[in-house]
């Protein structure tokens, strides 16, 4: 009986970990994705505004990093951070092609993070 109770407690802890892992990763990824989109959209209007958004995006990533490291592959998070840093640099240097390229890379990393937490037959198998 004692062991069954222990198994129950473990099951609850595991479930909480899984649910919080999925929700934290999705929330962080969504927020980063929205900011990255805003960054690209504002570039055509104002380069300065776009740079501000890129800086904000980088700050957000630094803020979310500890949570993302806990639940996701560290390499993917680092790739995302790298892409965002390069986005900031591209805006600053006015290199639109590189900006689009890094935006694409950042989106790929965001997709990877989300897919790792997605509940689907593909991910199960």
């Amino acid at each position, binding site marked *: 009986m004692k*062991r*069954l109770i222990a198994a129950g407690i473990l099951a609850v*802890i595991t479930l909480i970990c899984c649910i919080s892992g999925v929700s934290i990763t999705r929330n962080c990824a969504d927020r980063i994705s929205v900011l990255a989109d805003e960054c690209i959209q504002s570039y055509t209007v104002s380069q300065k505004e776009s740079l501000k958004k890129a800086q904000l995006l980088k700050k957000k990533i630094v803020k979310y990093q500890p949570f993302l490291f806990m639940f996701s*592959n560290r390499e993917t998070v680092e790739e995302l951070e790298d892409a965002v840093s390069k986005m900031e640099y591209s805006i600053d240097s006015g290199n639109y092609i590189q900006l689009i390229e890094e935006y694409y890379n950042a989106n790929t990393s965001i997709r990877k993070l989300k897919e790792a937490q997605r509940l689907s037959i593909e991910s199960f198998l």
Partner: protein
Amino acid sequence: MITTIIRTAILYVFVILGIRLMGKRQIGDMQPSELVITLLISEIAAIPLQDINQPILNGITAIFVLVILEIILSVLAMKSFIVRKIISGKSVVLIKNGVLDQRAMKSVRITVLDLVELLRSQEIFDISTIDFAVLEVNGNLSVLLKQEHQPATAGDLNINTSSAGLPLPIISDGMVIKDSLKALNITQQKLEKILQKNKQSAENIFLMTLDRYGNTNIIEREN
């Protein structure tokens, strides 16, 4: 480097916790499913240790899930004979009344030489002396000798014996083990009296055992 040390320590704690929750058994006594789960836990624990990019929580979650499944299965196996049969299989009688059951041997894929070797390890050299030999689910061979070949017991010889009781360690390395005192229903004062009678003090004792009849065995601490 420090990260690796801390990650290893965290995983160590969780692996020990997992194995303890699964229950205390030696490898030789494990059911096949328990052995597989134990090996899997060690494999899973190694992944976040080797790859620092893998979150440690993934490994811990996987270990927890395996432990939960193992506990649930073991509880189900205790409650249901069918579940037990599916998970652990069933014992097979290999020798009945001194005769080898060749079909049973084929079904468990054991050769005569393997069987003879197992019997020899139990100091049985003549199959005809065996009443029953059963291959247990954990791979051990249990043997019941025919009545006429079984060693005589005190009961067979009508000798009255009384159980000496289990001698428990009371003092280990100068420290009194309170659980043992409780098990033997002995107070601290009574223990001190026993020590005085033996002209000893707890600090000078390396090991002291005591049974329920008050028989003591004292090994003094070496200087």
